[in-house]
C-alpha cells in the first residue's frame, strides 16, 4: 500500500495519456462502424459490415476522417473561410459571453447563499423560487429576456448567468454551513462579528464546495451562452452555428459533429482553467488531491 498519495504525473505525461486514450476512443468509433455501420466505399473498394448497428450508420456516427476533412473544407460552398476557422472564431465569441455569465453567476450564487445563511427568513421565503427558477427551461424565458434587453450580448450573458448561479448557490449553502458548530461557537466566544466569522471560518470551509460548483458552472455557462445565442437573436457564436447545422443535419451531419467538437473543446478548456486555479488556491491542503 503506498505510503503517501501517488505523486502527480507531470503535465506532459498526463496530456500524453489523455491523447492516447482519445485515439483509443477514435479507434473504437471506427471499429463500431467497421463491424456494424454503413458500407465503406473508398478507392473503388467496398467493405460491407457484417452487422447492422443502427447507431453506427453514417448519419448517426460519421466517419472520424469525414468530420476532420469537413473542418478544413469551406464553410459553405463558395465561402472563403474554412469550417474550422469559422468555428474557431465563433468559439471565442461565445466564450466571451460565457465567461462574463460565469463570473456574474458565481458572484450572484455566493451572494444569495451568504444572504440565505445569515437571514433564514430570506431563505425560507426565496429558496423555493430559486429552485423553481431552474426548472423553467431557458428556452421559454429567452423571449422575455430579449424583450426587455434587446437582441444583444446582454441577453446572452443574462442567460449564461441564469444557468450558472444555481450550482454555486447550492454548493455555497452546503459549504457555508459545513464548519463544525464548535468552530463557530469558538468565534462567538471571541465576540467575533458575523462578518468576521463569515470571512474567517465559513468562506474558507466552503472553498472546496465552491470549486466543485465552479467546475460544473464552467461548462454550464458555455451551454448557456450557446443556448442563448439562438433565441437571443445574436447572429454569431457557436449557438448560431449549432442551430444552422442541426437544421441541415440529414444533409451534412459532419458539420454538427464538428461544431459539437468545438463546443466540447471550449468547455474542456474553460474547465481546465478552473482546475488550474483550484490547484493553486487549494495548494497545500491534502484534501486538494481530489476532484
Amino acid at each position: 500500500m503506498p505510503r503517501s498519495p501517488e505523486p502527480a504525473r507531470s503535465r506532459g505525461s498526463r496530456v500524453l495519456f489523455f491523447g492516447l486514450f482519445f485515439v483509443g476512443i477514435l479507434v473504437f468509433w471506427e471499429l463500431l462502424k467497421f463491424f456494424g455501420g454503413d458500407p465503406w466505399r473508398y478507392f473503388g473498394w467496398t467493405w460491407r459490415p457484417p452487422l447492422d448497428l443502427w447507431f453506427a450508420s453514417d448519419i448517426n456516427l460519421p466517419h472520424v476522417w469525414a468530420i476532420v476533412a469537413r473542418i478544413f473544407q469551406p464553410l459553405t460552398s463558395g465561402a472563403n473561410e474554412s469550417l474550422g476557422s469559422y468555428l474557431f472564431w465563433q468559439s471565442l465569441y461565445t466564450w466571451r459571453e460565457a465567461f462574463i455569465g460565469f463570473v456574474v453567476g458565481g458572484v450572484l450564487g455566493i451572494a444569495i447563499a451568504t444572504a440565505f445563511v445569515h437571514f433564514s427568513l430570506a431563505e425560507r421565503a426565496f429558496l423555493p423560487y430559486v429552485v423553481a427558477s431552474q426548472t423553467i427551461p431557458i428556452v421559454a424565458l429567452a423571449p422575455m429576456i430579449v424583450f426587455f434587453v434587446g437582441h444583444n450580448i446582454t441577453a446572452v450573458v443574462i442567460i449564461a448567468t441564469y444557468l450558472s448561479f444555481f450550482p454555486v448557490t447550492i454548493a455555497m449553502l452546503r459549504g457555508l454551513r459545513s464548519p463544525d458548530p464548535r468552530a463557530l461557537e469558538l468565534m462567538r466566544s471571541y465576540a467575533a462579528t458575523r462578518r468576521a466569522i463569515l470571512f474567517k471560518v465559513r468562506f474558507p470551509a466552503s472553498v472546496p464546495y465552491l470549486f466543485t460548483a465552479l467546475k460544473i458552472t464552467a461548462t454550464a455557462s458555455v451551454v448557456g451562452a450557446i443556448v442563448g445565442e439562438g433565441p437571443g437573436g445574436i447572429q454569431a457564436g457557436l449557438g448560431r452555428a449549432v442551430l444552422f447545422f442541426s437544421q441541415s443535419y440529414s444533409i451534412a451531419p459532419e458539420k454538427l459533429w464538428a461544431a459539437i467538437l468545438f463546443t466540447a473543446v471550449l468547455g474542456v478548456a474553460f474547465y481546465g482553467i478552473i482546475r488550474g486555479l483550484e490547484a493553486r488556491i487549494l495548494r497545500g491542503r491534502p484534501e486538494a488531491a481530489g476532484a
Partner: protein
Amino acid sequence: MRRLRQYLPALVILISMLVGWELAVRVLNVKAFILPAPTSIWAALIANWNDGYFIFPSARVTLIEALGGLAIGTGLGVVTAVVVSRFPRSRDTVLPLAVAVNAVPIIAFAPLANSWFGTLSPFSKMAIAAALVFFPIMINLLRGLTQVDSSALELMRSYAAGPTAVTAKLRVPNALPYFLTGLKIATTLSLIGAVVGEYFGGLTETLGRVVVAGASALRFDITWSAILVVSVMGIVLYLLVMLLERALIPWHPSVRGERRA
C-alpha cells in the same frame, strides 16, 4: 404551528409575486406573448388538465422521461466517480471526457439523440436528461470520495485497512453530503433535459410538445401553464431530495443545524 412559520415567508412572497404580476400585466397592458396574467394561466391549466392539450397525461410522460434520465445519469455518474476515486490514474483520461460531454449544449445533443434513439421514443429524452445529470453527480461524488480528512486516513492506515475498507467505511459516508448536493442540481436538470428534448420532437403527449403546440397556436397561457407544471414537479423532486438528506445525513452540520449554546 412551527410548520406554518417555516413556510409562511415563501407563501407571502408567492402571493405578492402573483398579485404584482397580475397587476403589472393588466395595468401595463403587457402583450400575451411576453407574459400572460396568472389568472389566465391558471384558467388555461384547469381547462386543459385532462382535456384540450391534456396537460396531466403529458406531465406523467415527461416525468417518467426525466426520472429515467435521472436514474441513468446518476448510475453512470456514480460508477464513474467510484472508479476514478479507486484508480486515481484514470482521472486524466476520464475527467476531460466527462467535461467534454457536459459541454455539449442540449440544442446540439437533442437532434443527435433523436436520430439515434428515435424521435418518438421516450428513451431519446431520457438520454438527453441523463447527459445533463451525469456530470454534476459525478463531480460532486468524486470530490466527496477523495476529499477526506487526512487524520481519518491515517487512522485507517493505523488499522492496516485495505483500500476497499477505506472506501466503504470512510470515503462513502464522507461523500454523501456531496452526492446529495449533486443530486439537488441533477433533479432540476433532468426535467429540463426531458422538456427541452421534447421541443425538438417527441410524443405529442409530453409537456415539451404542449409548450411548442401552445406557442405555435399563439396560446401563451397554455405554454406557461405547461411550464408551471414543470416547475412544480421540479420543486417536488427537490423537496424529496431534502427529505432524503434528513434521512441519510442527519449528522452533517448543514442538516443538523447549529446549536446555539
